């Protein structure tokens, strides 16, 4: 049977109704917009201008306020309380149900974050993530950008290395889980037939007893970081490559005539000229690493000493229902992200203004 016929079978009717629902939603939205435009378009006189402004600007403002401003403020407030699950009213004390009251507890959640051993390890691991991942990603990305900049026939390597950027973190985690399959040993302890690529390679290279890649700390954290690097390098390579291309050819040529070549050219001319782009790429990868949730959540869910800030936050909020504590982690994440995003956005804006 051809696979496409299979797609049509099965839960096709339910899937069909979902898709019909989408088309209806979008159609209703468009129709509503058209009607509003038509009605407001008829209005003339002194109400025309204010009405136009409201129609154009209000939806975006309302969505931003309702979706970001108000929730962010509420999360900050919650981070100073001992709130547990949403709607949880009772807890068991000495075998009896007593009412659980949410109250303000000042900075206790933050104190907990910085004293609890598990959370401290999470924070430290997050710091390793945001130092190592950007460093390695930008390093490899820059190397590739420089090498490809001096080559012909670069479409294929460029596309293949860039391809992972389009893959979801979950998909990438599954792809790499296959690479990291645990090594297989025979009864007598000698390596058996491997299913994981990494085990296969290291055993072929002579390491007879590799660890269980995903379960054994601390190596597992670094292996998970590799997945993030794998996804992000393409982005770094393409953006840095574009910046290198934007260096006027006369400058490169002139520097070369002056005797600069290879490493000197790279250090004295190219790097200074793409410095801003380098920083933007590094901060961007840092932000993504700081928010590394999908990969950790999929590969280990933070077990086996691999937890990071974004994942522990999710688990506190939605699994163990420590809403107050989870909110304090969200606020910490926010505080770390603010300067990076602010820098990037300002930089992006300045570049645009210069153009």
């Amino acid at each position, binding site marked *: 049977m051809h*696979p496409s016929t*299979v*797609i049509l079978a*099965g839960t096709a009717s*339910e899937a069909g109704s*979902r*898709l019909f629902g*989408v088309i209806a*939603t*979008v159609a209703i*939205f*468009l129709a509503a917009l058209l009607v509003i435009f038509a009605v407001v378009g008829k209005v003339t006189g002194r109400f025309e201008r204010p009405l*136009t*402004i409201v129609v*154009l*600007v209000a939806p*975006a*403002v309302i*969505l*931003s306020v309702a*979706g*970001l401003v108000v*929730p962010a403020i*509420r*999360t900050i407030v*919650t981070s100073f309380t001992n709130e547990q699950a*949403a*709607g949880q009213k009772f807890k068991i004390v000495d075998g009896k149900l007593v009412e659980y009251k949410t109250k303000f507890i000042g900075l206790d959640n933050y104190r907990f974050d910085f004293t609890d051993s598990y959370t401290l390890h999470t924070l430290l691991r997050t710091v390793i993530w945001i130092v190592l991942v950007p460093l390695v990603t930008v390093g*490899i990305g820059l190397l590739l950008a420089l090498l490809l900049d*001096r*080559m012909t026939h670069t479409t294929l*390597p460029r*596309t293949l290395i860039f*391809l*992972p*950027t*389009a*893959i979801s973190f*979950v998909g990438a985690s*599954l792809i790499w889980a296959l690479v990291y399959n645990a090594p297989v040993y025979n009864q007598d302890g000698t390596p058996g037939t*491997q*299913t994981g*690529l990494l085990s296969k390679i290291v055993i072929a290279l002579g390491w007879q007893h590799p660890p269980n890649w995903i379960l054994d700390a601390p190596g597992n954290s670094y292996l998970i970081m590799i997945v993030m690097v794998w996804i992000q390098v393409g982005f770094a390579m393409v*953006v840095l490559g*574009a910046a290198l291309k934007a260096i006027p*050819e*006369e*400058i490169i*040529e*002139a520097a*070369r005539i*002056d005797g600069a070549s290879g490493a000197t050219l790279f250090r004295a001319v190219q790097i200074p000229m793409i410095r801003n782009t380098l920083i933007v790429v590094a901060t961007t990868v840092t932000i*993504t690493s700081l928010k590394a949730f999908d990969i950790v*959540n999929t590969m280990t869910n933070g077990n086996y000493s691999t937890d990071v800030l974004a994942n522990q936050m999710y688990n506190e909020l*939605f699994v163990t229902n420590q809403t107050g504590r989870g909110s304090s982690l*969200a*606020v910490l994440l*926010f505080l770390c992200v603010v300067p990076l995003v602010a820098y*990037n*956005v300002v930089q992006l804006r300045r570049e645009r203004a210069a153009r």
Partner: protein
Amino acid sequence: MTASTVSAEAPENDARIVLTGPAATRAVRRAFSHPLASLIVVVLTVVWTVPLLGFFLNSFRDKGSVGSSGWWNWFAHPGSSTLGNYRTVLNGDGMVLPLANSLAITIPATVIPILLASMAAYGLAWVRFRGSSFIFFAIFALQVVPLQMALVPLQKYFNSGVRLGGVTVIPSFGLKGSLAEIWVTHTMFSMPLAVFLLHNFIAALPRELIEAARVDGASHLRTFRSIVLPLSTPAIASFAIFQFLWVWNDLLVAKTFGGSDASHQPVTARIQNLSGSFGAHQELLAPAGFLAILIPLVVFLALQRFFVRGLLAGSVKG
């Protein structure tokens, strides 16, 4: 030594160089390329491609082979390829509904923000009013708020509406447990970036064009619909691709609002669930995963140019 002096002095210093333009570029390229450089690029390309290739090949191997040997054994028996795994995930373990869910989330979460944001962008850029630059700056500044900050309050809102002192101020519109929870959330989160990007583009449209339309008696709404919107296609395209991939690939929002109800999971949440419960069905993970990344890969390969632009501009989102 500054760049300008280098380029100014160069011709005097070395008059023998006659190459200019593309010829010079090529000469420079040749002089710098090196076998070692090519080798590094080839090695890195292989390292970057092999995991994906292995995953892809594994999706065509049957249960017995996947459990007992690595994907590289496929090369020894390419004839044993089977579409059976795809058949299983498309029927029994239901990737059809998650794929439909992903589309049902992604399409409104892409189309609606584009229209609302371009309206706001036009309003803020061309219908100047008191406070318009403040509003633009405020929305633009909201990019620093990570969506992690908004998850719990939004979830409460979807559960029970907005309450002030026990009185429901805004009802929850029965969004609880529907896909709308997910795409409404994405729509809200997309606003700062969308308004910022589209404002940059729309504000740079030629003044004469907009004014000509206004002088001809077209209202602002009409000018927006018939002139500004069509002219903004490039900006809309790059934002659309970025937003489409972002929403399609998202796990955090999907997991938070889709919950554990399998019939409301998009592909990302679905394959993640499978990776937990497929211990006994390793062979189904690859085909399910591959179906989930297929659409982004096609979008990527077909629209790479717009993708780069959107990626760069949207790189601070989150």
